């Protein structure tokens, strides 16, 4: 999933919906200041999604829910996704001063491998449909700044109640903190549990560490 090159043909929306660019344009016209990017999906499903900025996400959600043509009144699926930190390498030529064999200083060109780190992020994905117009899906994505200390996202439960348990689940299993959620508690794991098991780098503890005493 990469950002869409500008010259490509318009990407289809879900069945019965305008192309995703049109939905993007509608959002940008209807919610001033909202930053929306189209995320291209190369799979045959052709379900492209819209990446929102966290600040305007709730306004955009309300806009999509109440827009007379879209009426996305039904949030079917809400889920978290974990994207790990990635690293890209590139080879660059650098000029360096080195000691020559005779002890003099020489300038030569050396090839160096330079590594760039891209911080990973947690993603919240919402699949919207319309029960009134019977179309969909429109897919929204929200991304946290990183995976460690800035994992806050606005909750969309005040817009679609169906996200209530599912956001709790994303909080429980991924550690996304939804600001504005009415009742953000663990839902599947028990209250004293500390980690987030659906994260890609999660290491499960040994069995006897989870249940001390059982195997003693």
């Amino acid at each position, binding site marked *: 999933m990469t950002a869409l090159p500008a010259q490509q043909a318009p990407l289809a929306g879900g*069945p019965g919906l305008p192309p995703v660019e049109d939905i993007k344009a509608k959002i940008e016209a209807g919610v001033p200041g909202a930053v929306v990017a189209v995320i291209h999906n190369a799979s045959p499903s052709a379900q492209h999604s819209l990446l929102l900025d966290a600040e305007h996400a709730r306004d955009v959600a309300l806009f999509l829910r109440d827009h007379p043509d879209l009426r996305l*009144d039904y*949030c079917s*699926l809400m889920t978290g996704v974990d994207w790990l930190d990635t690293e890209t390498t590139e080879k660059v030529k650098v000029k360096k001063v080195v000691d020559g064999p005779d002890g003099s200083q020489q300038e030569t060109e050396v090839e160096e491998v330079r590594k760039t780190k891209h911080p990973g992020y947690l993603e919240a994905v919402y699949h919207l449909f319309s029960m009134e117009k*019977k179309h969909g*899906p429109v897919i929204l994505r929200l991304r946290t700044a990183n995976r460690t200390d800035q994992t806050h996202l606005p909750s969309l439960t005040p817009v679609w109640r169906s996200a209530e348990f599912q956001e709790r689940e994303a909080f429980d299993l991924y550690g996304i903190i939804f600001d504005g959620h*009415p009742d953000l508690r663990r839902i*599947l794991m028990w209250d004293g549990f500390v980690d987030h098991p659906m994260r890609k780098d999660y290491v499960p503890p040994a069995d006897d560490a989870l249940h001390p005493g059982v195997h003693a």
Partner: protein
Amino acid sequence: MTGPLLELDSVAGAGEIMEVSMGPHHPSTHGVFRMDVRLEGEKVVRLKPVFGYLHRNHEKIAEHGAYLSAIPYTDRLDYLCSMTNNWGYCLAVEKLAGIAVPERAEYIRVIVAELTRFQNHAGLVGFLLQDMGASGTPLMYAFREREKVLDLFESLSGARMMCNYMRFGGVRVDCTTAWLDEVRRLVPALPRFVDEFENLLRANEILMARTQGTGKLPRDLAINAGVTGPMLRASGVNYDVRKVDKYGIYDRFDFRVPLGDHGDVYDRYMMRILEMRETVKILEQALRDIPGGPIIDPKVRLRGLRPKAGEAYGRIESPKGELGFYLISDGSTNPYRYRVRPPSMINLTILEDMCLGENIADVVITLGSVDIVLGEVDR
């Protein structure tokens, strides 16, 4: 937040508040499920569902295996309806990888899915009446019928409940003519069973007094809370994924979508009865039209399937509601992200809203009318 959470201090006579933990080992909870209920006298003033007792991180298990290896695990989600679970997952993989399904396999899928719907609804109605105190009889009637369907599943797939029958691109084994004849013998007898079953209690005065007006779910709240399946349609919303998405070959069948009016327990009970009748109609048409031919796309690679990087969301109308699977592929042999949209769990979101102000005894039948299976709620 729409659900009014009553603070203890604001309730009149707050000294009389009693906290009850219903479950997790109570027969009315249909599994290992608990409700933290606060009562004022017999009236419910707060109710919080607590679950996760069966949690085994199904999604993580599926992300660690190949696409094929997740199919038997989907059987164990809603363990009464393994056939529809298989279908939902296979549909999502087919969307992700662009796989076509041969005609005969589509018909077999419809037949087994509708048989599943029939036995699920029969069982649910039996359990619901059991919850109301009609001890034994309706449930045994339902199970007698369910047994016949499970026998058919066993002779087709080798297992009664954990069928592991569908594959992306088709189904695992072909059905024989003898098997189809057996289904053709069973289906004409089903309407008579529904009549008999319905006449047991439908017009019973006690049943009507208990269920009519109980556990009401308003239409707008049902939509906003993502309630799906017979529960949503009992509140009068015409939304059936079989009609909306027309996945598989559902556009070829003539059937109606029954709708309720009041959104109470009685409507939800009637919805199941009416859907059983529509299911019989679909079965008759499918059994009449089923063609010969291959049952699986021969080009599909079951083992070592590597879909292009991308994502897909596939959904079907399972007996409980909209069952969806969301898959992200990174181009490798196992899904990067595998997510189940469990209808049972999302239908529980508004359990508190339906129960507030009701009597504690009605909580049992309101929960019974939601139709949950904890294998799917907890995953």
